[in-house]
């Protein structure tokens, strides 16, 4: 991580999601940047979701498809007039397909400083059991 520590952050455009289905509400939809890594026991997903409150974040795992959907609120109050707008805020949406069995009951999600940390524990493989054969 030494190279990353001295790195200067550069501006990157948010990736707008290409809608295949019609939206019921107006507004831009973005795909959040994510890190995904796995260890022997679990898969971890980190997603940048600035402006999303825990109550406006939906995480759904159905048939191996993991969906993350978040909504942001407009911070501008009544009477504020825009001068410079360099970024847009809107909804976040991204889907992933998991091909590993996940222990749904132990999924853990934390949202801190606009970053989601989702822990998806893998289903524990049945430990091989030795069967002793008794002799009568």
């Amino acid at each position, binding site marked *: *991580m030494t190279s*990353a*520590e*001295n*790195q*200067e*952050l*550069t*501006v*990157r455009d948010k990736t*707008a*999601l*290409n809608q*295949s289905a019609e939206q019921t509400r107006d507004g*831009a939809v973005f*795909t959040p*940047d*994510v*890190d*995904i*890594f*796995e*260890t*022997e026991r679990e*898969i*971890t997903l*980190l997603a*940048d*979701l*600035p*402006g*999303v*409150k825990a109550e406006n974040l939906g995480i759904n795992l159905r048939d191996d498809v993991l969906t993350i959907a978040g909504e942001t609120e407009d*911070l*501008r*109050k009544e*009477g*504020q*007039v*825009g*001068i*410079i*707008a*360099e*970024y*847009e*805020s809107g909804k976040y949406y*991204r*889907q*992933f*397909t*998991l*091909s*590993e069995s996940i222990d749904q009951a132990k999924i853990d999600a934390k*949202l801190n*400083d*606009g*970053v989601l940390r989702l822990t998806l524990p893998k289903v524990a493989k049945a430990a091989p059991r030795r069967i002793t054969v008794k002799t009568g």
Partner: protein
Amino acid sequence: MVYRKLFGVPAWRIRSPFEELERMRNRMDRLIDGFSRGSFETSSAGVYPLINLTEDKENYYVYAELPGVKPEALDIEATANNISISGERKIPPEDEGAKYHRKEREAGHFSRIIQMPGDINPETVDASLTNGILSVKVPKAATEKPKKIVIQGE
């Protein structure tokens, strides 16, 4: 690929010439949308973090998206007519045995200075960082505030 593929490629990531056109069209639409909404300046200074600047009669408001930045890693300074935002976004290292499927998030330093459209009162600048969004309330200097002129009758 050495590791098993766990995450399928999401459909919208597949690149095709039409996809690219569609994306361009969407961008254009949003740009035009932005123009018609008001006198917004849509060009970016190209410096991290990107900001939105608004004003009302009393204050200027600076907003920036800084996910994963802790308040203690952020430094905000104000002078007579500009605000500087600098800091560091850290991504702590994970377990040594972790194998990455995707690594899109970036860590690093940032430093930016934003010129305010008018004079400000640097003493009473107020900043907060919630859910990864920085909001800075910058009170305008007394000279910048609109004055109500009382019309006297006879």
